[in-house]
């Protein structure tokens, strides 16, 4: 009876048996072929928190996967861990927007707070592990930190203890909620934007207020974190869902308003409470408008002030229904014209007519390259073979970009509709959503939306009663930027390392499993239904000659109102920054706008009046990319920005070809020397030579475009590089070239000494403070705290 008495059993062998059993269950439900490797590893890691060797050995025994493939794949993707991590994982986002707002000091602050040495990432008590992640896609809230599934925005280095405390209290309250749920019938749900953009400073207080109010009023509801719909500057924001299925949205909520709102929707337990409810209910009528739907931006004026300018100049195609469409309400989507395009395509148009329409619309791929979508469709349609695939590329890896995440989370049905139409037009039988590992919410929503479509006969056998059958499945990426490149993405679905291969052959001829494959970006597919429904001519009215339609941008960085915007092609960068974004943060001067992420470039302020389209951006040495716009102000160092992107591509390079694997590393060596003041003038020429060579010789798009951030900054800001050779970094961003110094303006108020997290400033009231350079980590907290502007960054 060993199994029955836990303690007396042979724990080790029992543990092994259990592990084998659990692994077997995963294998049984996932599959045993080589292409199932990534889903298998994901499931094993989900089950055990890492990849235990015993579970992997079981894979060798029971599947076609061998050691060579497993090592190759599991070490390629950053998602997989071969050692156990702590109970909670702290992910510090080092995306572009977070970087320019000091993400590295936040990372250092967490390590200091948790007592982690240089090489350790897990605390001794196995509670926390910390890692840097490429981009959490919450750029409007930079710097952002994610602990397990909770996102914290605007994290300051001096406040990391508060973040940890907040996280711990949230975890505790969640545990008690779960306990409550078991004992009571649930009346409804309050959903807070805790998942992504919506979580800003203040949401946690709102969360606490909801918990408190429920307990005070005796209301039993589920408190559920949700993702936002893109109004990043309108948080905190809550949704109240009642048992009858209605949802009411309250933007810009304050903690003290929570109680009233809850009373408005739910019956308190006691009679006395009910009486109060009745009275307050009346008051509440004035508090919010009464649409039993998703209302946003309509209530009180003060809530909508900045929204109006934010919304001005935007044009909605991909994000049609912005602010009121419920992402997962298929009936609402249909009532607003959803799936009309699909019906029209399937019943009133033949395949070639659809392709012609897309060709005529002038739509170009939104993933970065700008290849005409219609031509791609034509190629796949003409390729021989009966089995064809459509892949939606949702591997949005650019740091500083979150358009695809929001489109997938908030308009899943529109993307699916576009994909089904694409599938029909090119004659495909299966579609695959390739969604980035860092976007769990998008995966959940797409899965749900796909289920809904199946139920409505919009997906599956004989769609809408026609003879067209099409299925869509979801493939979760495992953390590799290069998999946004289409040939690498295909390798990844096939269960291989994300190695791109030379084109031709193009995926349109020989793609997934050797079959003709259409790969379109999320945003591209989200524009299809509009084109089919309204016609190519209507669509082509928007935009510029060479770039039709609209473009969705993720506006972030040093800008007042960041968020997701959709503007007609041809809008100028200045319009976007000044009008929609409300200008540069802190009243600083605009220095440049970085477009296209690590493949793009920096466009200097003097060129920001150019109209944004594919060709204009290319001419300026940048690219449209997937649409990240990071605003850089006069306090941003361009060498640092270039080095940041090179560091990113160096880490994300797949390693296959020499120029990308070694060449980028050598460029980074030079940039490292530049940012530490050790470079010589000829290093700049060498950097340029390397950059130009890599651009011509790397094997894939990632490598070929990787030098762009360096080339564009060299082109427009060469003087900054030269200054760095002379040991000058005017913005103080290159830490090793500056030190902090307290000037004579200091009055000895001790504010800086109290704020310093590394005790580099002695507590000397009424005396001029002094910074101990050996302890100073240059986190910048003292500068923020000082009321007398007495702390300056000076040349070392």
């Amino acid at each position, binding site marked *: 009876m060993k199994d029955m008495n836990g303690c007396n059993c042979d724990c080790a062998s029992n543990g092994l048996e259990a592990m084998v059993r659990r692994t077997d269950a995963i294998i049984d439900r996932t599959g045993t072929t080589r292409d199932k490797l990534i889903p298998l590893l994901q499931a094993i890691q989900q089950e055990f928190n890492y990849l235990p060797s015993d579970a992997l050995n079981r894979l060798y025994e029971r599947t076609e996967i061998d*050691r060579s493939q497993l*090592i190759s794949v599991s070490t390629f993707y950053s998602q997989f861990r071969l050692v156990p991590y702590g109970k909670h994982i702290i992910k510090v986002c080092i995306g572009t927007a977070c970087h320019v707002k000091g993400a590295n000091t936040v990372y250092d602050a967490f390590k200091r707070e948790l007592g982690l040495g240089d090489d350790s990432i897990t605390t001794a008590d196995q509670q926390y592990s910390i890692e840097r992640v490429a981009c959490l896609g919450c750029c409007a809230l930079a710097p952002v930190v994610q602990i397990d599934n909770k996102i914290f925005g605007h994290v300051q280095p001096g406040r990391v203890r508060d973040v940890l405390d907040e996280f711990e209290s949230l975890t505790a309250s969640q545990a008690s909620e779960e306990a409550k749920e078991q004992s009571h019938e649930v009346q409804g749900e309050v959903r807070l934007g805790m998942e992504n953009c919506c979580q800003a400073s203040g949401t946690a207080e709102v969360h606490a207020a909801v918990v408190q109010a429920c307990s005070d009023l005796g209301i039993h509801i589920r408190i559920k974190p949700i993702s936002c719909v893109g109004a990043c500057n309108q948080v905190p924001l809550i949704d109240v869902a009642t048992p009858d299925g209605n949802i009411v949205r309250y933007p810009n909520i304050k903690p003290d308003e929570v109680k009233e709102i809850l009373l408005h929707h739910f019956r308190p337990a006691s009679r006395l409470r009910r009486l109060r409810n009745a009275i307050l209910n009346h008051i509440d009528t004035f508090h919010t408008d009464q649409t039993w739907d998703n209302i946003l931006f309509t209530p009180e004026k003060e809530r909508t002030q900045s929204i109006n300018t934010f919304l001005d100049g935007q044009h909605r195609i991909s994000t049609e229904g912005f602010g009121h469409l419920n992402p997962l309400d298929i009936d609402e989507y249909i009532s607003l014209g959803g799936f009309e395009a699909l019906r029209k395509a399937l019943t009133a148009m033949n395949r070639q007519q659809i392709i012609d329409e897309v060709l005529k619309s002038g739509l170009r791929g939104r993933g970065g390259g700008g290849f005409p979508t219609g031509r791609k469709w034509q190629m796949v349609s003409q390729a021989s073979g009966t089995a064809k695939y459509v892949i939606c590329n949702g591997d949005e890896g650019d740091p500083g970009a979150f358009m695809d995440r929001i489109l997938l989370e908030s308009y899943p049905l529109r993307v699916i509709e576009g994909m089904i139409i694409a599938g029909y037009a090119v004659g495909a039988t299966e579609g695959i959503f390739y969604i980035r590992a860092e976007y769990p919410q998008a995966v959940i929503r797409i899965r749900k939306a796909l289920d809904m479509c199946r139920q409505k006969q919009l997906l599956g056998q004989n769609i809408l009663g026609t003879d067209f059958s099409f299925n869509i499945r979801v493939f979760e990426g495992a953390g590799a930027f290069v998999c946004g490149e289409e040939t690498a993405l295909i390798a990844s679905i096939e269960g291989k390392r994300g190695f791109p291969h*030379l084109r031709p052959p193009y995926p349109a001829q020989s793609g997934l499993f050797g079959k003709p494959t259409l790969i379109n970006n999320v945003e591209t597919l989200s524009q299809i239904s509009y084109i089919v429904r309204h016609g190519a001519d209507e669509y082509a009215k928007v935009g510029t000659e060479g770039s039709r339609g609209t473009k969705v941008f993720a506006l972030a960085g040093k800008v007042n109102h960041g968020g997701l915007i959709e503007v007609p092609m041809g809008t100028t960068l200045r319009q976007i920054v000044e009008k929609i974004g409300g200008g540069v943060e802190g009243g600083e001067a605009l220095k440049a706008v970085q477009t296209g992420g690590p493949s793009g470039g920096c466009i200097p302020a003097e060129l920001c009046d150019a109209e944004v389209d594919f060709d204009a951006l290319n001419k300026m040495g940048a690219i449209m990319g997937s649409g990240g716009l990071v605003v850089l102000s006069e306090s941003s160092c361009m060498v640092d920005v270039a080095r940041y992107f090179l560091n990113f591509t*160096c880490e994300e390079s797949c*390693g296959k070809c020499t120029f990308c694997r070694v060449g980028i*590393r050598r460029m980074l060596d030079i940039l490292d020397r530049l940012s530490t003041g050790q470079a010589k003038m000829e290093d700049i020429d060498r950097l340029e030579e390397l950059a130009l060579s890599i651009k011509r010789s790397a094997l894939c798009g990632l490598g070929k475009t990787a030098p762009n951030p360096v080339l564009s900054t060299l082109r427009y800001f060469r003087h900054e590089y030269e200054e760095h050779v002379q040991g000058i970094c005017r913005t103080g961003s290159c830490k090793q070239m500056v030190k902090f110094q307290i000037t004579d303006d200091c009055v000895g108020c001790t504010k800086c000494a109290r704020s310093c997290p590394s005790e580099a400033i002695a507590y000397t009231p009424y005396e001029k403070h002094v910074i101990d350079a050996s302890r100073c980590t240059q986190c910048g907290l003292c500068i923020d705290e000082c009321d007398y502007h007495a702390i300056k960054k000076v040349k070392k």
Partner: protein
Amino acid sequence: MMKITVNDKILEVSGELTLLEELRNAGYDVPSLCYANKARHQASCMVCMVRNVANDQMLPSCSTYPTEGMHIDTESDDVRNMRRMSLELLLSDHRADCEAPCVVVCPAKIDVARLILYYDRGQMDKAKSVLREAVASEQLPCQDCKASCEKACRRGTVDTRVSVREIIAEVAKHKDSTDNVAPVSTKSTHTFSSKLGRYSEAEKEWLKEVYNQPSRCLHCACEGKDKCKLREYASQTGIKSLRYGVSSRQVVKEQQHVCGRLYFEPAKCVRCGLCVYNSQDGFTFQHRGFDMQVIIPEESKSHASEHLAELCPTGALFLREE
């Protein structure tokens, strides 16, 4: 058949073969590391690149198929410079000595490296025959020599130099044999010689621990140098010094026994993947980007075979002399 333009000449090609194969068949000299005849390969090294005149992009000829009307450039300075750069980049991540410094400096032209190799293995007959190759008389030239071999010794940068002259003297005492004669040393004609650079403190500790044979010699000479294409091309291109320095994440001088006579030294690997693509569940890639390495897990070593040494374009995979 289709027509392409190579430099200024028209070439008729079938379209079945890659550009590299077509060019080599037509007598053009195109270097390549990651391509081996009849072996599975994927474009990686970029040493074989040619310029696509139409768009000024560089193409790896080993994986590009010709298309009708294509115009390529295989020998302009531009192409040569780019090939040179790819070699320089590979060499900047290649921490290895082609030749042992002691051999390079020996005025008596004794192949000291091989002599010590046999000495450490206890093959004194062979060691003696190596000495005989250079020194016919009983009189050793070492007595009056200023011992440049010892001054150049790599071991000296770790702790103390190998006492080369003492070892030679000991070998000299051994009686000559005609049964166990070492093969005659080959003299390299290559002008390029890779240099290992400096050891880190950690590496020094590690080397002291691992290289503890009687001589304490690090055996820094490359055992695969005779077949190394990297060195051959670097010499042809006229590379003398490395513009990008040498810095690598690879562990220096770490030699692993794979199977039979096959050995693997990762620090010399150019990550071309030929051994990966041509062994079933044997060699594999690990990690990505600059950190990417080729490894072979202990359990998979039996899946490798000696012929992989021929495929390897450098001395990373080599057959150890019996």
